[in-house]
């Protein structure tokens, strides 16, 4: 493989990563749209997306391995290839979560909404925005942006807590809401994870550009924390129910 050829394939592979990213971005958007509108057809569409995403995944991986095996890439190219191999794992996971959300949509399609969905689409928008900016940072080899983006995760985490608390309250008041409520909590959890994966992408981009392996500052939702809070709420609701009885 000539040097020139090496760079052509490297460039094309980087573009494929962006293609995969675009598909994944679209999958998230559609998944949450489908959920908000109980649109089963749209949910099915996302499940098909997965095939395209997988194809790209395989192609990128093969190209990366070929590039590694057939040439001795120089430091910066080596980092790019390593970063891509990592990034596609995160993108794949995000795609999987979009499918998870689509499955939940199908499962919940015939149940009435608990209330208009507001915070979940908001979470999705934030997570999507993080992913988009992470991919921009990758396309532009922009380390500054890669360092800046993970801070947005805080907003996603905050929304997650809000959604969680609200859904627990619903379920505590009305056992009929448990199926829907618990599934929606899963959706929120997937979205929170998606934002985390976007943070991972940023980390890889920063490493790719700067050559310094480092965990970026990130915030993590203390699930236990929230869960404990949930227990408290359920207890509170029970007590209220008991004293409220004649």
């Amino acid at each position, binding site marked *: 493989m000539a040097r020139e050829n090496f760079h052509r394939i490297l460039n094309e592979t980087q573009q494929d990563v962006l293609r995969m990213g675009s598909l994944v*971005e679209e999958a998230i*958007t559609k998944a949450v749209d489908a959920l908000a509108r109980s649109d089963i057809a749209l949910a099915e569409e996302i499940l098909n997306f997965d095939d395209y995403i997988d194809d790209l995944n395989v192609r990128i991986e093969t190209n990366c391995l070929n590039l590694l095996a057939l040439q001795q890439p120089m430091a910066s190219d080596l980092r790019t290839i390593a970063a891509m191999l990592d990034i596609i794992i995160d993108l794949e996971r995000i795609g999987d979560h979009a499918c998870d959300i689509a499955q939940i949509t199908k499962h919940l399609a015939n149940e009435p909404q608990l209330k208009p969905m507001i915070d979940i689409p908001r979470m999705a928008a934030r997570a999507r925005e993080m992913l988009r900016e992470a991919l921009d940072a990758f396309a*532009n080899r922009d380390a500054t942006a890669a360092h800046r983006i993970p801070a947005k995760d805080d907003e996603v985490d905050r929304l997650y807590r809000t959604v969680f608390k609200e859904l627990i309250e619903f379920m505590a008041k009305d056992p009929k809401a448990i199926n829907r409520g618990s599934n929606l909590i899963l959706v929120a959890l997937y979205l929170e994870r998606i934002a985390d994966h976007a943070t991972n992408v940023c980390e890889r981009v920063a490493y790719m550009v700067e050559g310094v392996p480092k965990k970026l500052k990130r915030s993590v939702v203390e699930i236990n924390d929230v869960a404990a809070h949930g227990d408290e709420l359920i207890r509170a609701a029970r007590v209220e129910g008991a004293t409220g009885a004649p």
Partner: protein
Amino acid sequence: MISPFLAAAVALAIAFIIAYWVTRRRLEAVRAELAAATDRAAVSSDSDLAAMARLSALLDALPVGVIVIDDDARVVAFNAGATEILGVQAERPVGRALIESVRSYDLDRRLLAALREGVEGTADVPLHAASDRNLRITTKAVHAADGSTEAIAIVEDLTRVRDLEAMRRDFVSNVSHELRTPLSAMKIMIETLQSGAGGEAAAGFLRSLAAETDRMVVLVEDLLDLARLESGKLDMRFGSVDLVELCRDVVASHLPRARRLGISLLATLPDGKVTIIGDRDKLVQVMVNLLDNALRHTPSGGHIDAGLSSAPGLATLYVKDDGPGIPYDALPHIFERFYVVDQSRSRSAGGTGLGLAIVKHIVEAHGGSVTVESELNRGTTFRCTFSI
């Protein structure tokens, strides 16, 4: 008794189909024109710098996005329309692969398919990347004389069309509502009359029935007029029209209503005649619509001045009130059909948002122009200027 209303409903439906058709047809014509223009532009593009500059200026002037990629799938042209519609960042995408600046898998795939496999076509594609938009993408392969191939994508933003359709749907449901509410009331009154109610009650019912019928007739006529105006099917009967006399007549016919509403209405008119070539009935409709708006929006105790002023070669009909005025950000929209400033207020006052759209159409069909000047809490003035 019911059949006139059935007829009204049918007329309404027809009016909508016409309006819808016309908008569609117009869009298609624009699209064809643009495709032809870009074809010509692509052919004339060569290495000549001046020609390139001219081409890029031309491309930037188009109200659609145009993207051209070369043999190597690098972007060689990306016009202002594409920047706006696709919401890309400041760094220009030229010289890079498209996917690096526009994150749309579909757009990328289609453009590459045109370049590499000659697969051309048009597709509606949602864009989620920077903004949620509906795009219509047309891709074509362009073969240059030197044997190289480029591919071009024309990107149209359908979001506006979609919004327009949503607006139309809203309007249909509003109109249906407006027709249904009085219809139910009328039905009850009619049934009461049929069951033998008489005397004072019957007379009251009949008065209400007449008033409601009038209102519905106005609504349906407005809709039909607008549909005809927009499709260019409204035949104008041109003749010589004296605007002084016209204005005097219209004001006179509104005096009783103004008096009832406690509004002072006066006409300021020059002596003699000011004559233009026009359709008298249509021009009356213009004045009636403007006066009707002024009367409906001006509170009791207010003043309305309707009149005619002339300058050499020009005649201006105006209606000026000292009512609540129109919010600044609503001003650019009030001539759009179906647009009403305050949904609830206008609707309860019987407004449909069609009046000013009709005014604008008629005035422009006379080669004139209509302007509005308004200040909150100070009042509003509409002016229609015609050349004599």
